[in-house]
């Protein structure tokens, strides 16, 4: 019995909890990408940099707040900075749309042109962000680190295995649930949200119904930027903020969005968790886990790993490519991907 509990705690601690937090971060990122895809119909390669930009503002705002002695101990000050990050990202993204994307929208440019334009935006943002904050690691976490630490858990339960839950992980999950709740409420229940779905469904008919295309696009960018800022800040809070990291996040985020079905918010969330848990569970070494639940003689000598962690990031791409080949419309998209 105790062995089984130990096994459960072990896998929760090393796979489920981190997977959940990572999944939340991917899901938030994928939601932003998928919203833009649904409304503007292109894959926004600059989304990773938007996350980075939001997180950067959060870092600055946190520093200013900290300097002025503002805090909400035991929670991290960054939560107070989040509104600034969201606002800043929204303003920046809307400015980008005004200066860059709007032109191509009016031209009704090809999807590929939009993708390349977004790559141009990605270049500019990548440079600007590094230029402003520098390429270094920035730590802006403060407050209580743990909800429960591994040591405390062991002392408390007397189990051999510990279970650590970081404050930032809890915040990540809670914020994600709130953000997603708000988003889904917005999309399903509000007039504006419904008009956005309508626009995503059928652009021409939406225009005929008096839905202002410009306004829908504006809202899509706003939501996408806000989600990006939240995702970026949470990621930076849970790990640490460094511009380069976000460049690497774009592909797993695309993978999440595509696996779920590009353009489907529900799919984006599901995709985020699928990618996150796949990465964690496929590269997890089950040796110790099996040690608890199997008789001693059955325990493998090796690490009992499906795939070395060297290939952790390849997991996302393999799932991505497999999805594209087997079911290009994604898991949660009824319409064909054409």
């Amino acid at each position, binding site marked *: 019995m105790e062995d089984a509990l130990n096994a459960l705690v072990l896998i929760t*601690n090393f796979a489920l909890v981190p997977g959940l937090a990572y999944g939340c971060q991917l899901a938030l990122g994928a939601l932003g990408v998928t919203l833009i895809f649904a409304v503007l119909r292109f894959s926004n390669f600059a989304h990773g940099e938007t996350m980075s930009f939001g997180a950067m503002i959060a870092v600055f705002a946190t520093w200013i707040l900290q300097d002025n002695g503002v805090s909400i101990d035991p929670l991290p000050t960054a939560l107070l900075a989040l509104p600034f990050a969201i606002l800043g990202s929204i303003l920046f993204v809307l400015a980008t749309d005004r200066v860059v994307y709007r032109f191509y929208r009016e031209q009704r440019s090809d999807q590929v042109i939009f993708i390349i334009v977004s790559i141009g935006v990605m270049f500019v943002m990548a440079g600007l962000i590094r230029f402003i904050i520098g*390429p270094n*690691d920035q730590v802006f976490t403060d407050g209580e680190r743990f909800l429960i630490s*591994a040591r405390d858990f062991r002392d408390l339960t007397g189990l051999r295995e*510990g279970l650590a839950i970081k404050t930032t992980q809890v915040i990540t999950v809670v914020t994600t649930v709130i953000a997603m709740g708000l988003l889904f409420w917005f999309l399903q229940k509000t007039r504006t949200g419904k008009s956005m779905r309508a626009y995503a469904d059928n652009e021409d008919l939406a225009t005929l119904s008096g839905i202002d295309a410009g306004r829908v696009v504006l809202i899509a960018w706003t939501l996408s930027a806000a989600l990006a800022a939240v995702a970026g800040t949470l990621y930076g809070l849970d*790990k640490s903020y460094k511009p*380069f990291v976000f460049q690497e996040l774009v592909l797993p985020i695309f993978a999440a969005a595509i696996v779920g079905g590009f353009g489907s918010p529900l799919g984006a969330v599901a995709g985020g968790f699928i990618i996150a848990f796949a990465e964690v569970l496929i590269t997890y070494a089950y040796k110790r886990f099996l040690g608890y639940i199997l008789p001693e003689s059955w325990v493998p000598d090796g690490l009992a790993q499906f795939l070395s962690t060297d290939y952790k*990031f390849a997991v996302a791409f393999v799932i991505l490519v497999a999805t594209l080949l087997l079911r290009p419309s994604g898991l949660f998209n009824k319409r064909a991907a054409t």
Partner: protein
Amino acid sequence: MKKSFAAIVSVAALLAATPGFAAEVKIGVLLGFTGPLESLAPAIASGAELAIAEVSESGEFLDGSTVTPVRGDSTCVDAGAATTAAERLITSDGVAAIVGAMCSGATTAVLQNAALPNGTVMISPSATSPALSTVEDNGQFFRVAPSDARQGEVLADILEEHGITEAALTYTNNDYGKGLADSIASAFEKKGGTITINASHEDGKGDYSAEVAALASAGGEVLIVAGYLDQGGKGIVQAALDSGAFDTFILPDGMVGELLIEAIGPDLDGSYGIYPGSDSSGAEIFAKMAADNGFNPGVYSPEAYDAAALLLLAMQKAGSTDPAVFKGEVVSVANEPGEKILPGELAKALKILKDGGDVDYVGASAVELIGPGESAGNFREIEIQDGKIQTVKYR
């Protein structure tokens, strides 16, 4: 001030092609300012530029010549761009020598394609790949970073003394990490120890939970982290502590620094490791100097200071900035005999050399050059106690 001057100089050189500034010696600082290790580069550059400024301001260097640094971006991911940047430093800016490059890959490319053909001397503060020991360098390439092979043996000794028989090992997935991990693993296993897992981690990623999960599952009394203290290495230590996977960490040279203690906090107490250095206070002095100049002495920042200092001292000793002449003096100023020189004492050293004396440059990282122009590998065994790096002994 110095940076902006450097910028003006480099651009002026670019645009106006003025080879002038006769009494001005330029030193190239070629590091990966953009790319995956971009966050390490500024502190390393600052280290080198600190030494350059010190020499320049002393007024003792080669009959009062001034020295200015010129930066170049070796990117770490693009050998082509690195070579071009080095080519620009050497042939257009006319640098007398180069501090760099940063990553072993870029270093090899620059050495073979720009430095060797042009006869320029390079001292890398950070390239540790064993492959660089055997590369054809015509006596023009040195490095003040310690050799990975030596470090592995020292670490294995320490592990044995601590009675460790099983250890997990993770390394940053580049030539430095991989080479170091291999040498640690083979040295430790020769002594009868077991490496339960030898797994890589990527720098520049945010999330290391999967890596730590694998390490934890493999088990071991301690975790050896052959990485960088402000890159993946820190992430691994943090994630391992957070999840309670390991309490004690073995920290090779790339991981020892105040930054790590600052970032991780008291949980790091009880971890131990090694750091290049002999019985000298160079590192502390350098740390203070860096703080006074407004930057954090990151990884390889002391080595960069030493690299620049060695180049300039060698020129002083040879009385020339001609690489063919002064390349022979690098080893002699770095090693005995002579007066020991610590950071901040470059003026003194220049004066001694000018008067025909000898110096034994110790510097911030206790430099001792051996064999093919590499650091001898004097190490300080350190242990972290009460949030401080305590030196246990020297090896």
